[in-house]
């Protein structure tokens, strides 16, 4: 892994770092770039912000109505059919 990486390469590593622990060389190269590049630092913060927003939104999903009575009945019938066989 080279030490000096471009913004484009940094965004790929910043994205990957959200999914797994980067190997040492990549981690160091990314941190060094982020330390001096305000654009990439901001980009990385925004990716994390986006993840947080999705999480909040997924949780807010509890306000969405659940199964309709019809769907619930249909599923209950299917389960009963299977239980009876």
């Amino acid at each position, binding site marked *: 892994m080279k030490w000096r990486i471009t913004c484009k390469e940094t965004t790929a590593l910043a994205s990957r770092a959200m999914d797994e622990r980067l190997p040492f060389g990549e981690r160091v190269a990314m941190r060094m770039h982020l330390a001096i590049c305000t654009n990439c630092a901001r*980009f990385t913060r925004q990716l994390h912000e986006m993840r947080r927003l999705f999480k909040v939104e997924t949780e807010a999903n509890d306000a969405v109505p659940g199964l309709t009575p019809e769907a619930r009945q249909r599923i209950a019938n*299917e389960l009963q059919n299977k239980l009876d066989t």
Partner: protein
Amino acid sequence: MSLNTLDPQRWLADHGDYLFRVARRQLHSDALAEDAVQETLLAALSAQARYAGDASPRTWLCAILKHKIVDAIRRQVREVEIPRDADGEEAVDSLFKQDGHWAEPMRPWGNPHTEAELSQLRRMLDECADRLKPAMAQVFSLREVAGMETEEICKELGITPTNCWVLLHRARLFMRQCLELNGFSKAGAA
């Protein structure tokens, strides 16, 4: 937990709504989400002998649901395109100069507080996610909405970790860009 206490109708009563919301969030369709809940409960019924009772029923049902959601998404997108498709590549390239530096500076994001701002943002997240290319949408949604680990996603979709990272990288670049173009940049935080 003995087999006698496993009551599928109770699963439906206690967890049906929860499973439905989880599925609907990822499948964007009431009908598909209902199917996923039904398939989950039927599969749970068949597999109940394997339910050791060491996880809560909800955790166990959610694990099954996850597979049903992946199946449903798979049916929607026949093949995961290997990320070599020119569109995605060009879209990424257009954000950067030849030398790999940003073509445009990153603008700061606003910090939505009011209910109206938040609901607008929610709509924007959904709209931008809907505009992702199918292969990207699939991986992005499994990762960011379902919260699955990439290793699990790769296994489920039969793609390599590298393809997974490329798809996620492109999806995130696109999503960030989409949010910004839709006005989610204001003077302020982030």
